[in-house]
């Protein structure tokens, strides 16, 4: 008996030691984020709103950030706002979990999260009834058109305040071809302005001994570029041509669904792709590429092994290609050919319905205050600069009157409050390369200013009744359509017949019928 007790005692001491060690850890671990400001609580009840930002927290400046922010919010709203910095990576999962557990008052959502899926399941508050309390916000959003906010609605409810793009005649989000203008001149070719001149450029590169070894097209989204060039003048995509390659509408009749695979344009896309694949313009393993190649191709461009980049949006090329090339190879010249530029499609106001949004949790206890905070962010320049860039001289500097992060240590750069960017609150930023800047300027002045929104603006395809078909179609798309569209085929005609049969088996007819019905209903509301 004594022995047993002694052993139990030993075990108890052991556990106690472990527990003490653990206690010290809890103290370390739960060291919360900054609460360093010593502003005393006002006599009024100050609530705390919780929000998050995607990205890495800056290592300096946070103390001042909250000091300045609190000074503003406590006075104006009787609230404090605290941000968690959620690192990128698995962000969909993290945001879904946060929604399920009700951790935040303010949520940022969009393509990077399952915004539409969760919003339609009432994760977020319908803000429409509350808009009457934020007249400044509403006015801000009517600068371009009265209907802007209404296009952000889903099933008639406003689940979030969208990011706002300013109309400046150039859509920085569209994709295009980045190419070497100096090589173009060297080869004596015409400037790239359409599919033909683009093709000539690509083929010339293949013949040049310097660039022969590396296939110039490595991105499996190339078929979307072909779509814009070949079919984009006649047809408009419905929910994004990658997500929904089956159905399009024509600009002439925007509310009648057309089966894209039946059109001659689709066949033409396949023909170009297959020709380029056979001739080695398209990388042999383009389907396996995915993440492996796209990061690499920027490297190859910089290393003078590849002569073009086919599927990056213009603003991303700025940081990943233009700036480094400008630094390392000042004699090079870069050209830009926007796929949508010359295809003859009408220009519309920048889209709203697919933008990132800031939403308010359905479970939030301070919804009204949260909405007012969003209003301030979008209308008050001090708020906007603070939330987007951070603290002046710690997270960003003013260079020539424009906020810039040149000269700021990487670790001190603050990611902007996700889904906040507002074209009307910002001044345009200049490109690092003056030659590139010239191109950007030309785009802005060259195009007419659009006045209207696209006829499909605000339309959202509700697929809840089509879950089985959606899933099956998705697999057919990946397994059969994508290879065909990247030119990996021995016989276009037989493969196309096969694809259509597989799509039918997956339930395409039901999908299209549902789409048409929803589109017709939508048309009636416009």
């Amino acid at each position: 008996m004594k022995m047993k007790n002694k052993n139990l005692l030993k075990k108890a001491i052991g556990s106690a030691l472990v527990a003490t060690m653990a206690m010290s850890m809890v103290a370390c671990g739960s060291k919360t984020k900054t609460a360093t400001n010593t502003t005393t609580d006002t006599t009024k009840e100050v609530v705390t709103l919780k929000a998050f930002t995607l990205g890495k927290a800056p290592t300096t400046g946070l103390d001042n950030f909250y000091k300045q922010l609190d000074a503003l919010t406590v006075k104006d709203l009787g609230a404090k706002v605290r941000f968690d910095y959620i690192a990128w990576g698995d962000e969909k999962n993290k945001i879904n979990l946060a929604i399920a557990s009700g951790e935040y008052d303010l949520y940022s959502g969009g393509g990077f999260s399952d915004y539409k899926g969760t919003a339609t399941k009432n994760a977020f508050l319908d803000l429409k009834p509350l808009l009457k309390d934020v007249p400044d916000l509403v006015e801000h959003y009517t600068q371009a058109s009265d209907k802007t906010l209404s296009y952000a609605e889903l099933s008639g409810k406003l689940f979030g305040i969208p990011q706002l793009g300013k109309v400046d005649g150039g859509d920085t989000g569209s994709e295009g071809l980045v190419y070497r203008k100096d090589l173009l001149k060297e080869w004596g070719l015409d400037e790239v302005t359409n599919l033909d001149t683009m093709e000539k450029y690509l083929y010339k590169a293949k013949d040049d001994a310097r660039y022969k070894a590396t296939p110039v097209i490595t991105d499996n989204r190339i078929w979307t570029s072909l779509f814009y060039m070949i079919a984009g003048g006649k047809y408009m995509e419905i929910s994004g041509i990658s997500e929904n390659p089956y159905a399009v509408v024509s600009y002439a009749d925007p509310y009648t669904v057309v089966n894209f695979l039946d059109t001659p344009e689709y066949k033409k896309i396949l023909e170009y792709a297959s020709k380029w694949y056979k001739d080695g313009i398209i990388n042999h393993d383009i389907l396996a590429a995915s993440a492996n190649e796209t990061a690499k191709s920027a490297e190859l461009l910089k290393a003078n092994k590849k002569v073009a980049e086919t599927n990056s949006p213009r603003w991303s090329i700025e940081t990943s290609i233009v700036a480094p090339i400008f630094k390392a190879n000042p004699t090079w010249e870069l050209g830009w050919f926007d796929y949508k530029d010359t295809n003859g499609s009408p220009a519309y106001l920048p889209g709203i319905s697919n933008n990132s949004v800031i939403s308010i949790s359905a479970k939030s206890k301070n919804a009204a205050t949260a909405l007012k905070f969003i209003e301030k962010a979008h209308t008050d320049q001090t708020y906007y600069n603070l939330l987007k860039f951070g603290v002046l001289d710690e997270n960003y500097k003013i260079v020539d009157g424009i906020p810039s992060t040149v000269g700021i240590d990487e670790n001190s750069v603050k990611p902007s409050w996700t889904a906040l960017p507002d074209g009307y609150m910002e001044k345009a930023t200049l490109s690092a390369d003056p030659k590139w800047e010239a191109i950007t300027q030309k785009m802005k002045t060259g195009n007419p200013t659009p006045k209207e929104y696209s006829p499909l603006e605000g339309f959202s395809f509700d697929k809840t009744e089509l879950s089985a078909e959606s899933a099956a179609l998705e697999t057919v798309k990946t397994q059969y359509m994508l290879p065909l569209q990247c030119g990996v085929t021995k016989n276009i005609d037989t493969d196309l017949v096969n694809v259509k049969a597989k799509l039918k088996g997956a339930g395409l007819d039901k999908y299209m019928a549902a789409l048409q019905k929803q589109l017709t209903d939508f048309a009636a509301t416009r």
Partner: protein
Amino acid sequence: MENTSNHIKMGVRAKGFNILSIIFIAIIAIACVTPFIFIVSGSLSDQAAVAVNGYSLLPQGFTLEAYKTVFKMGKSIPRAYYITILITVVGTTLGLLTTSMSGYVLSRPDFENRNKAAFFIYFTTLFGGGLIPTYLVNVNILHLNNSLWVLILPSIMNPFNIYLFRNFVKSIPNSLVESARIDGAGDFKVFWSVVMPLTKPALATVGLFLALGYWNEWFRCNLYIKNPDSYTLQYLLYSMLANVEAMLRDKGMAGSLQVMPTETMKLATAVLATGPVLLFYPFVQKYFVGGLTIGGVKG
């Protein structure tokens, strides 16, 4: 006479067998380590060269650029090492204590409910609530959010380790247990003083698995930990890469002229994460040599 010649014959055969075994294992070991060599060499290579030529056994254009960038971006790497070591030590200790106790009890033939208890834990490997309910329990009920405990507690036991330990204990002859009982020892004393010393290989195995699990912990850190001071090593490295890729996508940056060797950085982080363990493993190895030290068992 016969025996000796037999032994000589066997000596030769045994030697041959030995050599064959060594060759076979050497081939496998090389196959295992070669990809790793590619990774190390890639991490020391020039980014542009790797993009053009692919990976190779020797570094191309030897440079420490990738590592420099990693350390510049991850000023908190030492802190992450500390956190990871902390949770590994605490977690493994707690895990070994609880797993060994549980495995021991489940192996006792005189414990009638052992099968029911075994099924109780095994069932959890078949059915689970899923990511979201688990998250809700951890955050809303247990409030483990943002505390290091969330990285430690949910992993201290798992059915696999418990079954493993149970199995090892079963191979200890019952006669040893009986003789200890006859000497008047209670159940716990039998466990602690008699059985435990004999299960060194089992303890080493389970301990190793636990330690490796904690060392590699990143998923839960990703979900639950928001404070960068509490990041584990693996997670810090993972988030660094994800952040770099995201920064290349982020619209709001005006004129960030930094050129980052993203591909080679990926490899450098892999090396940094793995390196220390390879130094640690041989040290643990000696605990694997064990087995029954008490004299031979009759019959």
